[in-house]
């Protein structure tokens, strides 16, 4: 396989890692006002993802860095072209990340309420906008012959892209609800499971519509098979939700997101950013790539360290495998004056 193809696959893997992992912690954040009825329940929800959300977010940073290294032209066009959505995502991730840490460091309804808003908004904004951005990438955007995006902000918001945003939002909500039912016990667990079932049906409908549209728009046989696999996994996950098998349900939503993202990348290949302009230039795995030498070095580094990362991230999930209930939440020790 060409090294450029290898790196296209690796970047797809990084995004799959990002969406399957941060997907559920976005979902938990988005569900904070829905699943939690009081302060202790909010703390239960936040603590289900407390030890892992930061590690999940690093998948995004590595995906960004790897794109810079392996496909500099793609990185340059994508991030300068999608400037404003990306700015919104960055602002959301900033306030959300600080909120997890700072919320617990102070007392008072006002203090915690403000950070709750930061978590909720900070989770919704990227959950929607990543879907919009990926739909735009797969569908193609106006890219001029010199490789510059020439579309402006509102060009990114057509119906197909908005459906993409709705799809990721609903998938992450379902994924998050399933995760909460897997990680908690007591009333929250049951409520989360019931919510996952309801949200899941909605998510399945929207996801199938989006994947079908994608398939008709830019798919081929392989992407079609992956999309079918994603739909099957999602339905299987929902069946597991109904049967109260939370572990299997989480596997279902996890695999559904993974196969869906994989299908998007397969539909994209060999382009990395197709153009919609007749006289424009699509960025492809070859014309956007770094040199073979850089790709070779990066391949060695990735081959050595990716398994190691998977190993210790899995270990950290194992360490925190226990379900959390309201009884497990200790009294908080924040000094009284932090307001």
């Amino acid at each position, binding site marked *: 396989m060409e090294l450029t193809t290898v790196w296209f696959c690796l970047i797809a893997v990084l995004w799959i890692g990002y969406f399957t992992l941060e997907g559920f912690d976005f979902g938990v954040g988005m569900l904070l006002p829905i699943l939690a009825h009081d302060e202790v329940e909010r703390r239960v929800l936040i*603590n289900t993802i407390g030890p892992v959300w930061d590690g999940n977010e690093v998948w995004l940073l590595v995906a960004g860095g790897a794109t*810079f290294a392996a*496909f500099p032209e793609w990185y340059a066009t994508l991030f*300068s072209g999608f400037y404003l959505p990306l700015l919104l995502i960055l602002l959301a991730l900033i306030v959300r990340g600080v909120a997890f840490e*700072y919320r617990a460091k102070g007392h008072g309804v006002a203090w915690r309420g403000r950070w709750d808003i930061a978590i909720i908004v900070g989770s919704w904004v990227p959950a929607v906008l990543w879907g919009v951005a990926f739909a735009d990438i797969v569908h193609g955007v106006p890219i001029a012959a010199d490789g510059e995006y020439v579309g402006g902000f509102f060009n990114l918001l057509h119906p197909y892209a908005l459906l993409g945003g709705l799809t990721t939002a609903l998938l992450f909500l379902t994924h998050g609800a399933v995760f909460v039912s897997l990680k908690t016990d007591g009333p929250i667990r049951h409520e989360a499971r019931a919510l996952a079932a309801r949200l899941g049906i909605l998510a399945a409908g929207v996801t199938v519509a989006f994947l079908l549209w994608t398939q008709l728009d830019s798919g081929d046989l392989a992407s079609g098979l992956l999309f079918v696999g994603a739909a099957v996994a999602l339905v299987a996950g929902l069946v597991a939700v109904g049967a109260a098998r939370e572990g299997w349900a989480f596997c279902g939503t996890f695999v559904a997101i993974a196969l869906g993202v994989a299908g998007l990348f397969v539909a994209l290949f060999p382009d990395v950013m197709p153009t919609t302009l007749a006289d424009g230039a699509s960025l492809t795995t070859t014309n956007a790539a770094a040199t073979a030498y850089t790709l070779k070095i990066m391949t060695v580094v990735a081959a050595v360290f990716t398994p190691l990362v998977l190993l210790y991230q899995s270990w950290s999930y194992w360490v925190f495998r226990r379900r959390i209930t309201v009884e497990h939440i200790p009294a908080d020790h924040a000094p009284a004056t932090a307001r």
Partner: protein
Amino acid sequence: MDPLDIARWQFGIVTVYHFLFVPITIGLSAIVAGYETAWVRTGHEHWLRLTKFFGKLFLINFAIGVVTGIVQEFQFGMNWSDYSRFVGDIFGAPLAIEGLLAFFLESTFLGLWIFGWDRLPARVHAACIWIVHVGTLLSAYFILAANSWMQHPVGYRFNPDTGRAELHDFAAVLLNKVQLATFPHVVLSAYLTGAGFVVGVAFWSMRRTRDEEDDRRMYLRAVRTGAAVALVAALGVVVSGDVQGKIMTDVQPMKMAAAEGLYDTTDHAPFSLLTIGKLDGSTATNIIEMPGLLSFLGTGHFDGEVQGINQLRAEYRRTYGTDPGAAYYSPGDYTPIVPVTYWSFRLMIGLGLLAAAGAALILLATRRGRAPTGRFWLWLAIAMPLLPVAANSFGWIFTEMGRQPWAVFGLMTTAQAVSPGVGAGTVLTSLLAFTVVYAVLAVIEVRLVLTYIRAGAEPLPEPVGPDDTDRPLAFAY
């Protein structure tokens, strides 16, 4: 306004802001790891209380350092897309490796450390914070390798077909001589910063707890260990800075000339502590001059020749042609803004030395368990965390502004690096958004830190019985 100017302001603001927190993270993670190790080895509860006390302050700082770091990675694509296209082959690799090797390590093991108090054996728990520290060092190495390449590009070839710089020798990039001097300088400055923070906080806390003999002894340990780290680190900062200065004089002579506002090539060049006048080569009047010191800093000899701005400007014009970015930055071709480089260079050195002197004074004053009172000591306690942070910021302002008008020295100017397709309004939107959010977060962060400092180190909780799935978590958000 020109999008380039706004993009430059944005880069400066988000980068300097991010770097307020980075050195504290690097330094404090090492010190907290040291305290926890001391606890594991001695079982003395003072060390555990210090671990938790400074651990909380560390986390408040770390959170903001991490989230502001996310912007760093994406702003190259957003605001500097032509730069990204030109150097992505070289610059992207250390960035990606930084993520893969360092960020995963830091975030995963910090999660284990924060929440793992009752889930991991004590030794494993202590190992987690050490791994976090190693992650911060790896992160610093790769990001500084990328920056050093911009200061002194090596290991690349310019490809006229693609119009970009292409990686030719990755080892040369990682072992760039600028990098080999910069990495120890920055990391030791970070240790000085973390230690300055510990000294200031513990010294201030000690002064308040004169009635509680046990707490006083605990803070005294923190003061004296912190001051010792600060002094050793400061010595290293001076030595590595000296090496760095000589390499800089060699590879970026204009930066050294601009650091002194030296307009004409001179041997036995003096170093001025203060100056009045415009620093434009016409009316500069140095007030206090150390003869030969600039020559020594740059060359290692008090009578060594240091090139002046005028000669270098002529030389650069011969080598690179007319400076396309001159209009944006400087009174003349290829010259950085001299007052900025002159003052930031002095503030970096001066504030760093003051921090070291403060640590030495406090170490002397706390011999045999003494806790000096009086306003001077109060102000010193407050200054100790701030001086090294400010010195770090001025150091970065100096090293980045001193490279102007180049983004990559000799290869690409900052004016050529900016995103061609991004308008002024767009960059201004993000500049304002980041500045406002960062300003709000800064206020919150400082207030939280002060609250936690005032609350002091908590007493240890009651020991819990054997593992029981129903008991509350040892730590939860």
